[in-house]
C-alpha cells in the first residue's frame, strides 16, 4: 500500500512541477472574472475532473484549480530548455520508437496471443535502456511480473481447491456409506430389545459419521477461503497495475498508457476494465493528500476512458505541432510559440514533440525568450525594459499583440508620473510627508522608472544642497564672514526659507552688510568728488556697525591716507572723549569740523560733549 501511494505521489508531483507550484500563481489576468473561466472548467462531458486548456486565456484547468501555462516559471524554463534541445533522431531514439511500435503491434487485439505477449514483455527491459524512457518500461515490466506472480498464486489456489473438492467428494461418499451401513442386519422382535438395538445402532452410526462430517466442514471452509483469497489476489494485482497506468497518464506518458493498457488486457482477459484504483485510493486518501494532489476519486471510471483520453491527447499534440509548423512558415511567431507551448504542456514526451527539428524550434526560441522576458519585466514592474521588449517583439512577430502589455505599461507610466508630479510639488512646498508618500507610491507602481531616480535624485540633491548651504551659513556666521554670506545670499535665502530662526539671523547679516555696502557706495561717490574726508567718514560710520568687513577695512585704510589730518582730529577727539578729556576732545571735534564742516561724526561729537558740559 505504501509503495502504491509513493508511486502515485511521485506522478502527481511531477505533474505539479510541470505545470505550476500553486493555482495562486495565475497572474494574467490578475483577477480573472468568472466569465473568462475556460469552458472546460464547467461541468461538461468529463466535468472538471480532467486537465483542460483554454486557448483564449492560456489557462489550464484541472480539478477546480487554474494555471496560466505561459506564466509559470518552471514551465517556461522547461519549454526554453526544450526549444534548445536537439531533436531525438539518434539511433537509440529510433530503436526505442521501433520497439515501442512493435510492442503495441504485438499486443494489438488482432494479434494478441500468449506468444506475442511474451515477445512484447521481453522487449520492455530493452526499451527501458533508452534514457528518456525514465525506466518507465522497467516499472511496467515489474508490474507485469507482479501480476504474473499473483496469477501463479491464483493457479496454486485453484489446484488446492481442486484437491479439496476431490476430498470433499470422498468424505461425502464415506458419510453416505456410513449412514447406509449402519442400518444393515435384523432388528430384535422384542419391542424393548428392538428399541435398545435401535439406540445402539444410531450411536454406532453417529460415531462413524462424526469425523467424516467434521472434516467435510473443514474442507468446505478451506475451499471458501481459497476462493476469497483468489479473488483478493486478482483484485490486488489489477489495482496495482491500474495505479501504474493512472500514474503514467498523470505523467503525460500517453504512449506508455496505451502500452500498459494493452498489457493489462492481455494479463486480465476477463473483460473487467473498471478502474478500481480510484475507488481503492479514495477510501484511503487523506484530506491533506487531496489538497496536495487532488481528489483521486475524480479519475476516469474505466481503463477504456483512460485509453481514449491518451489517444485524444496524442492526436491533440500532433495537431498542435502541425499548427506550429504552419504558423512558423507564415512568420506568425507568437501563435506558433503558443501552439508549440500548448502541445509541449500536454505531450512533452510524445514523439511529435521530441522529433521536432531544433532549427524550427530555435526560430521561436528568441521570440519565446523575449516573451518570457516581457512577462518577467511586467512581473517586476520594469516598464522601461518591458516597453523595449514589446517593440522588439512587434518587430519580430507579425502577430504579436502589443495592446495588453502596452496598456499596462502606459497606465503604470501615467500613474507614476502623477505621483512624481505630486512629489515634486510637495518638495517645492517643503511638505516632507507628502513627498515621501508620493515617492513611495511612484516607486511601488514603477520601481525602475528612470524619472523616479532623476526626480528623487534631484530632490535629495536639493536636500543635500540645502543642508550644505545651512552648514556653510552657520560656519560663515560663526566666523563673522558676513561679506561671504552677502556674496552668496541667494543660496542662503533659499536654504533658510524653511527655518525661520536662521532666516532672521540671515536677515540681520544681510542688513548689516547692506549698510556697509551703502556706506561704501556713498564713499565712492564722495571720493569721486574729491571729498576724501566725507568718503572716510562714510566708511567709518559703516565700519562702526560692521568692523570685520574686509571691504570696509580696505576703503577705510585708503581714505584715511587721503584725509589724514581730518581723520587724526576725529580719532584724537574720540580717544580724548574716551579718556574723559572732554575739553581736549571737544577742541579736536571742533578742529575736525573746521577741516570738514559737513562731518557728521564731528557734529555728533560736539553736540554730545556740549550737552554733557552744559548739563546741570
Amino acid at each position: 500500500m505504501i509503495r502504491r501511494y509513493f508511486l502515485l505521489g511521485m506522478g502527481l508531483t511531477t505533474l505539479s512541477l510541470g505545470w505550476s507550484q500553486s493555482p495562486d500563481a495565475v497572474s494574467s489576468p490578475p483577477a480573472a472574472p468568472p466569465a473568462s473561466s475556460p469552458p472546460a472548467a464547467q461541468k461538461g462531458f468529463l466535468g472538471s475532473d480532467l486537465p483542460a486548456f483554454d486557448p483564449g486565456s492560456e489557462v489550464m484547468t484541472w480539478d477546480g484549480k487554474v494555471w496560466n501555462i505561459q506564466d509559470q516559471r518552471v514551465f517556461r524554463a522547461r519549454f526554453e530548455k526544450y526549444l534548445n534541445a536537439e531533436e531525438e533522431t539518434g539511433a537509440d531514439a529510433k530503436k526505442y520508437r521501433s520497439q515501442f511500435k512493435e510492442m503495441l503491434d504485438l499486443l494489438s487485439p488482432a494479434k494478441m496471443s500468449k506468444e506475442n505477449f511474451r515477445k512484447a514483455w521481453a522487449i520492455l527491459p530493452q526499451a527501458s535502456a533508452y534514457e528518456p524512457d525514465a525506466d518507465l518500461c522497467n516499472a511496467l515490466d515489474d508490474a507485469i511480473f507482479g501480476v504474473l506472480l499473483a496469477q501463479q498464486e491464483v493457479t496454486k489456489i485453484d489446484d488446492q481447491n481442486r484437491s479439496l473438492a476431490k476430498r470433499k467428494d470422498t468424505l461425502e461418499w464415506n458419510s453416505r456409506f456410513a449412514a447406509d451401513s449402519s442400518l444393515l442386519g435384523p432388528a430384535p422382535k422384542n419391542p424393548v430389545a428392538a428399541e435398545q438395538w435401535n439406540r445402539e445402532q444410531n450411536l454406532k452410526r453417529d460415531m462413524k459419521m462424526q469425523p467424516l462430517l467434521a472434516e467435510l466442514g473443514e474442507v468446505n471452509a478451506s475451499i471458501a477461503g481459497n476462493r476469497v483469497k483468489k479473488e483478493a489476489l486478482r483484485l490486488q494485482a489489477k489495482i496495482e497495475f491500474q495505479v501504474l497506468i493512472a500514474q503514467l497518464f498523470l505523467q503525460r506518458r500517453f504512449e506508455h498508457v496505451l502500452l500498459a493498457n494493452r498489457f493489462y488486457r492481455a494479463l486480465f482477459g476477463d473483460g473487467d476494465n473498471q478502474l478500481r484504483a480510484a475507488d481503492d485510493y479514495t477510501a484511503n486518501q487523506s484530506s491533506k493528500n487531496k489538497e496536495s494532489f487532488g481528489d483521486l476519486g475524480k479519475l476516469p471510471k474505466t481503463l477504456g476512458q483512460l485509453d481514449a483520453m491518451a489517444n485524444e491527447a496524442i492526436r491533440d499534440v500532433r495537431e498542435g505541432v502541425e499548427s506550429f509548423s504552419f504558423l512558423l512558415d507564415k512568420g506568425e511567431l507568437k501563435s506558433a510559440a503558443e501552439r508549440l507551448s500548448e502541445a509541449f504542456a500536454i505531450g512533452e514526451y510524445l514523439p511529435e514533440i521530441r522529433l521536432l527539428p531544433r532549427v524550427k524550434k530555435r526560430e521561436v526560441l528568441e521570440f519565446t525568450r523575449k516573451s518570457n522576458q516581457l512577462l518577467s519585466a511586467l512581473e517586476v514592474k520594469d516598464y522601461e525594459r518591458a516597453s523595449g521588449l514589446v517593440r522588439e517583439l512587434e518587430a519580430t512577430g507579425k502577430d504579436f499583440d502589443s495592446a495588453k502589455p502596452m496598456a499596462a505599461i502606459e497606465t503604470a507610466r501615467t500613474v507614476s508620473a502623477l505621483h512624481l508630479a505630486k512629489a515634486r510639488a510637495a518638495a517645492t512646498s517643503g511638505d516632507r510627508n507628502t513627498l515621501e508618500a508620493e515617492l513611495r507610491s511612484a516607486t511601488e507602481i514603477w520601481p525602475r522608472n528612470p524619472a523616479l531616480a532623476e526626480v528623487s535624485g534631484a530632490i535629495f540633491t536639493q536636500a543635500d544642497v540645502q543642508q550644505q548651504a545651512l552648514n556653510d551659513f552657520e560656519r560663515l556666521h560663526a566666523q563673522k564672514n558676513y561679506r561671504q554670506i552677502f556674496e552668496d545670499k541667494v543660496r542662503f535665502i533659499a536654504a533658510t526659507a524653511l527655518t525661520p530662526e536662521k532666516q532672521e539671523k540671515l536677515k540681520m547679516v544681510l542688513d548689516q552688510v547692506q549698510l556697509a555696502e551703502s556706506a561704501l557706495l556713498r564713499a565712492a561717490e564722495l571720493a569721486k568728488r574729491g571729498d576724501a574726508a566725507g568718503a572716510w567718514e562714510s566708511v567709518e560710520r559703516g565700519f562702526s556697525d560692521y568692523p570685520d568687513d574686509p571691504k570696509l577695512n580696505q576703503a577705510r585704510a585708503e581714505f584715511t591716507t587721503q584725509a589724514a589730518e581730518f581723520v587724526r582730529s576725529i580719532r584724537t577727539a574720540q580717544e580724548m572723549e574716551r579718556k574723559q578729556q572732554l575739553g581736549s576732545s571737544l577742541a579736536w571735534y571742533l578742529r575736525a569740523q573746521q577741516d570738514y564742516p559737513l562731518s557728521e561724526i564731528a557734529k555728533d561729537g560736539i553736540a554730545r560733549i556740549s550737552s554733557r558740559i552744559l548739563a546741570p
Partner: protein
Amino acid sequence: MARRAHRTSSPVAWWGGLALIVALGAGGALVFQKGSDPYRTVEALKPQDYLENANSLRGNIYQLEGVIASSLGSSPEKGRLFSLRTSYGDKDWPLPVLLPPGYRDINLQKGQRYRMKVKVNETGFLEIEEMTKS
C-alpha cells in the same frame, strides 16, 4: 669876506640822532601797545597744549584772543558755550570757551573778536573770567 669859522657835522652824531629817534618811536609804540592789552601780564594759551591734555592745565589762567565762530549751546546753570577761533602759528585753532551765567548781559555774536582771560576749570574747560572786544 670874513672868513667864517669852519663847522662840520659828525656822521656819528647823525647816526646817533637817528637811532635816538627810532628808539623813542619804538618805545612810544611799545608803551602805546602795552597800554591797550589789559591781560598783558597773563600768559597766552598755546592751543596745542590744550588740545594735547586739557586736564593737565586745570586751574591755570590764560589769555586768549579770537573770533567767535559759533555757539555750541547754553544752559541757565552753566552758561553759554562758544567756539572761539584763535590763531597760533600759521594755523587757526578753534577752541571751546564757556561763558559763565554771570555774563548774561554780554551779547556775543559770531564774527566778533574778543580778548579774554580764561581759566581751565575742573572739568578741563576754558571758562571765561574776563573779556573785552579787541
